[in-house]
């Protein structure tokens, strides 16, 4: 557990970066600090491992005040990942990852073994081991940064915008991998970002800070969406919060899935017409995996790939309401495709049914 108790940081030039912060990051959970640029996120994070010393107040690590500890020893207990990875340019990837174990006195050889395992864990091929940082893309460097912070198996991790240096696609990928990893390792993590999407996606709990270094709200992602503390938080969380909050509701049998008649590619127009309900028929492959929707009346001869409309997304029966609703809204037939975890068709649902299920569920109001 990491705890801030009335922590304030005023820089020598008078800027108050953090102002009377109380915050608790529970053990084994991922706590996210989010807020507009300059609100004191980085400052807060760096006070934990004492790269910055607080002006007043106390920070506790597992109930021990950090102020009395030897700074270097304290830091060795805490993994730290920074924005641009901050790799050592003069060391190979494997040696970068092995840094902490070696510093802690492990033999170089053993440390390298650990490092190689960790590299695999964060999705870096083993043949990267002997490369140098400049030979890696931004996203790959980020992974090395994460692996390096994990190498000493620290109980705590601090991450400062760890995925910001990469483009949106790679970023989403890194986030997914990281979530999977955290599920395995369950560290006590504080992560900084200024991207609310990232915060909502990753955080067990999210602390929203406002400029001036004050905490605006501390809540779980879904609480943040359904009960923003004030207009600043509501605004910061964004316009789509209704839709987004659906991302925290599981489908789990709340919506009845109807059977859907299907055809396969190569079917005749007549066959398709016969199976169609309304203007559209669902096309699946041999393994009952949905391929797309087709309009039988437009098929001349047999059903081919070019007849498919691909706009529909699909939802899994174990997924979220958000996916389900999108499947329905995006489907040209207005019937959303539901598949099981292996991607095989279960059936379809309509947006109306989904909305009914949503409306039936009480709004989650948190006591404040």
């Amino acid at each position, binding site marked *: 557990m990491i705890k801030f108790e009335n922590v304030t940081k005023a820089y020598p030039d008078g800027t108050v970066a953090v102002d009377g912060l109380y915050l608790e990051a529970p053990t084994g959970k991922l706590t996210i600090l989010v807020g507009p640029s300059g609100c004191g996120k980085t400052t807060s994070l760096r006070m934990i*491992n004492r*790269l910055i010393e607080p002006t007043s107040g106390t920070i506790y690590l597992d109930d021990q005040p950090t102020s009395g500890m030897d700074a*270097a*020893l*304290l*830091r*060795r207990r*805490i993994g*730290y990942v*920074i*924005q*641009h*990875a*901050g*790799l*050592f*340019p*003069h*060391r*190979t990837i494997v040696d970068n990852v092995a*840094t*902490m174990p070696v*510093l802690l006195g492990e033999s170089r050889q053993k440390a390298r073994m650990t490092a190689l395992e960790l590299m695999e864990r964060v999705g870096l091929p083993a043949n990267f081991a002997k490369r*140098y*940082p*400049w030979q890696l893309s931004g996203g790959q460097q980020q992974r090395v940064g994460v692996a*390096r912070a994990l190498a000493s198996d620290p109980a705590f991790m*601090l991450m400062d915008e760890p995925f910001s240096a990469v483009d949106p696609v790679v970023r989403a990928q890194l986030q997914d991998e990281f979530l999977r990893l955290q599920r395995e390792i369950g560290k006590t993590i504080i992560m900084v970002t200024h991207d609310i999407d990232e915060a909502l996606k990753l955080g067990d709990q999210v602390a929203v800070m406002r400029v001036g270094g004050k905490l605006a709200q501390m809540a779980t992602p879904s609480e943040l969406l359904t009960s923003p503390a004030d207009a600043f938080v509501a605004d910061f969380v964004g316009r789509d919060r209704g839709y987004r909050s659906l991302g925290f509701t599981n489908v789990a049998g709340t919506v009845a899935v109807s059977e859907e008649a299907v055809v396969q590619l190569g079917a005749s127009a007549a066959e398709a017409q016969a199976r169609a309900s309304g203007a559209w028929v669902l096309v699946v492959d041999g393994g009952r995996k949905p391929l797309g929707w087709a309009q039988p009346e437009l098929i001349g001869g047999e059903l081919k790939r070019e007849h498919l409309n691909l706009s529909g997304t699909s939802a899994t029966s174990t997924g979220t309401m958000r996916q389900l609703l999108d499947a329905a809204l995006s489907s040209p037939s207005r019937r959303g495709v539901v598949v099981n975890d292996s991607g095989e068709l279960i059936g379809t649902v309509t947006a109306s049914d989904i909305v009914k299920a949503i409306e039936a569920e009480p709004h989650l109001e948190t006591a404040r």
Partner: protein
Amino acid sequence: MNIEWLSRQFDNIVFLLGWHVLLAVTPLVLGLLIALPLGWWAHRSRRIYPLLVGIAGLLYTVPSLALFVLLPLVLGTKILDPLNIVGALTIYTVALLVRVVADALDSVPEDTVQAAKAMGYRAYQSLLKVELPVGVPVISAGLRVAAVSNVSLVSVAALLGIPQLGSLFTQGFQLRFFTPIIAGIILCVVLAMILDGLIILLNRWLTPWTPKVVAS
């Protein structure tokens, strides 16, 4: 070129070359050793930096001959002592490298330094294991300039009668004889290029991690 004269003087030239190498390389090594802590100091303190770099700049403008003559006063050495040359060139080397070392340490990305600190490196560990190794390319670039100019400067000591390749210039001048002068110039340039090349190799060896780019 009078080849016959050259072959006759071969032993002598080798002897002069040996001294030249010694007089040029010793200050380089000493200068680097002294400049490292000074440069680190300048890097650490924004107040010291302009002071040290300013003093260094001033030292350059002192003609080397004057420095050669001045040094016995300070060092208490004999006037013919090669130590005077070593001392003077060490001063120049230090003056040149203080700034280079400071700039080299400055050139280490802030992220890298912070990462080291955050991982629990103590200040000296970070300096020795991270900042200096990463600063090597910049230091070696400065070292190259120092090496090359040292070779050229040593020859000035000929005017003081300290034997090295510069002796070939005075000798040739007295006799109005081109062979020793040209031989001396060529040997100086070749020696400088060899030292330069050695530093490049050393740099490569120390920095297998840098992207291979055109050196300039």
